[in-house]
């Protein structure tokens, strides 16, 4: 617990450094309402998915299919919109489809006992493939302004992007779920020692199944946000995003071996990553350097806890 607190303090210091450094380097144009709006809009999609994935990784599992669920959700929105469905029906429907995608992952992992890394690498390809099957190579873009404004304009009178409002609501919900409920304690127990958790009466399989379903649903929700923000439904939307999300979760101090991590840390990590990327771009730093810095941060996030805190579950 001490290590975690220290890790979050370090993240907070890093965030302050990013904000101050970014403002100085860009002569203040970073720390403006519009700057904050841009950062928020850029990180919202990745941050949304990071929330349920935090719980999955705390339970010592992984879900790499999230970006593909996002793409499938986006493709479905496009194809159903073209078929004349009302958006009010499409949006809940794709969230249900996302939950089903998660349930398939959960079934394979819990009922068949397959490793989640292998399962979700498979479903990463499967769901992306399905996205191309339903929408093909087309792009659907004629969504009404009243909906795309959700992704492109701030809440009136502020510079807060709507997706960030959604993120804050879900962050509080997932924070409470992980840190203030018996379900959350079960997640930690499973991640720390699955055998012990099972013998102490925790329904390990059911808990993990629920986590995968939640992740699928939120990934589909992120697909809605993505589609509305870019006003473009495409099967290849969000390709490769899963690595950004995993980066944010690990940088947030969640142990890749399970059993440790906080939603607060992950929220801080998404802000650090989003802020840093935008500040570097705003300061005209070359794109390659931005990728490089993100990579170093990820390595540091995996490396630092590994030396400050030995994994509790034997050798990795």
């Amino acid at each position, binding site marked *: 617990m001490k290590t975690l607190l220290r890790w979050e303090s370090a993240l907070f210091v890093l965030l302050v450094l990013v904000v101050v450094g970014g403002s100085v380097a*860009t002569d203040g*144009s970073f720390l*403006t309402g*519009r*700057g904050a709006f*841009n950062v928020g*809009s*850029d990180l919202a999609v990745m941050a949304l998915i990071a929330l349920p994935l935090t719980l999955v990784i705390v339970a010592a599992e992984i879900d790499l299919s999230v970006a593909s669920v996002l793409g499938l959700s986006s493709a479905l929105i496009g194809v159903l*919109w*073209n078929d*004349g*469905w*009302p*958006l*009010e*029906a499409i*949006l*809940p429907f794709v*969230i*249900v489809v996302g*939950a089903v995608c998660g349930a398939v992952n959960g079934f394979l992992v819990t009922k068949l006992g397959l490793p989640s890394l292998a399962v979700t690498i498979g479903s990463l390809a499967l769901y992306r493939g399905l996205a191309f099957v339903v929408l*093909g*190579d*087309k*792009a659907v*873009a*004629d*969504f*009404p*302004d*009243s*909906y*795309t404004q959700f*992704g*492109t304009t701030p809440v009136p009178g502020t510079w807060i992007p709507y997706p960030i409002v959604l993120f804050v609501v879900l962050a509080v919900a997932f924070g409470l779920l992980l840190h203030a409920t018996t379900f959350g304690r079960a997640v930690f127990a499973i991640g720390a020692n699955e055998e012990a958790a099972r013998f102490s009466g925790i329904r390990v399989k059911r808990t993990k199944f*629920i986590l995968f*379903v*939640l992740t699928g*649903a939120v990934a589909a*929700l992120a697909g809605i946000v*993505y589609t509305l*923000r*870019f*006003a*473009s439904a*495409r099967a*290849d*939307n969000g*390709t*490769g995003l899963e690595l950004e999300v995993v980066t944010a979760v690990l940088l947030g101090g969640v142990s890749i071996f399970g059993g440790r991590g906080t939603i607060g840390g992950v929220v801080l990590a998404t802000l650090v990553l989003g802020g840093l*990327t*935008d500040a570097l*771009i*705003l300061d*005209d730093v*070359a*794109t*390659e350097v931005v*990728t490089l810095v993100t990579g170093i941060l990820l390595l540091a996030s995996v490396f630092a806890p590994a030396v400050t805190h030995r994994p509790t579950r034997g050798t990795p």
Partner: protein
Amino acid sequence: MKRMIAVVAAGLLLAGCGGTTKNNSGGDTGGGSTAAANPNAPAAKDLKLTFLPKQVNNPYFTVAQGGAEKAAAALGEQLKATGPSSADASSQVTYINTAAQQGQNALLLAANDSNAVAPALKAARKQGMKVVTFDSDAAPDARDVFINQASSQEIAAGQVKLISDAIGGAGEIAILSATANATNQNAWIAIMKQELAKPAYAKITLDEIAYGNDDDQTSFQKTQGLLQAHPNLKGIISPTTVGVAAAARYLDSSSYKGKVALTGLGTPNQMRKFLQDGTVGSIALWDPAQLGALATYAAVALASGQITGKQGDKFKAGELGEYTVGANGEVVLGPPLTFTKDNVDKYNF
């Protein structure tokens, strides 16, 4: 879980009562400028221009950037280049927002996805930034002017003519394109099909259209696949610089060298070796440096108030001469150049 779905669904239902479907939602309204052009206004100095290619480190855009930088220097403007490392649909949005945030006067953009960039472009234009697209257009209501490298008709008809000449006017051909959703590629392919339907090309059949995704390795493998799938194939058109170079490399190292003709849109530097050793007879391309330069002149003319992007607006583009804005705010650079082993050494890009 069920509760969560219900809550989300209820929220979304509340957000838009009555049902929003494709048929009852109003279309976007264009943000075209209404101010009058003043052709005699002097070109403003020290304008801040951002050059945003589809992706950085792409040789084609590096040449275009060189042309843009030269034109900007000649006019006394400040131009900087930036951009994403991958050509994803959405990867340019952050850079567009950033340019607006930095208060740049104009943006020169080759759009990866004509729609995904539109909301960000519209927001930037509301803040007074002029938007010139080049090479690959954005949604027309999201930009001021589009610099078209050559008319689609000229490019596509030219490519069909080149392959027909190379295979003696008869035989099976295939097309190796970039991505299946690339706006310009699909426009060209549609015109190529119309051309092939003409009596002059009655003996040519189009077997297949393959997509190499503008990725070197994929294009290489697709070329291999085309030749395996169609043993009688006599020619390949690859209207993309990445595709044609990869296809030429495959042909060069295979038994098909000299037997299967290849043409496409390629840069002289990438294709010089293959033109000289006979793997490829001829390729076509516009000069990307001129494209970048023309985009810069158009951006400066817009930012100086000399043009507004209306049809009939005229502006001077240095040594390129005078250009007129056509329908839909399009400016056409000119007919593409054809490169063969005889003239390829005159060009260096």
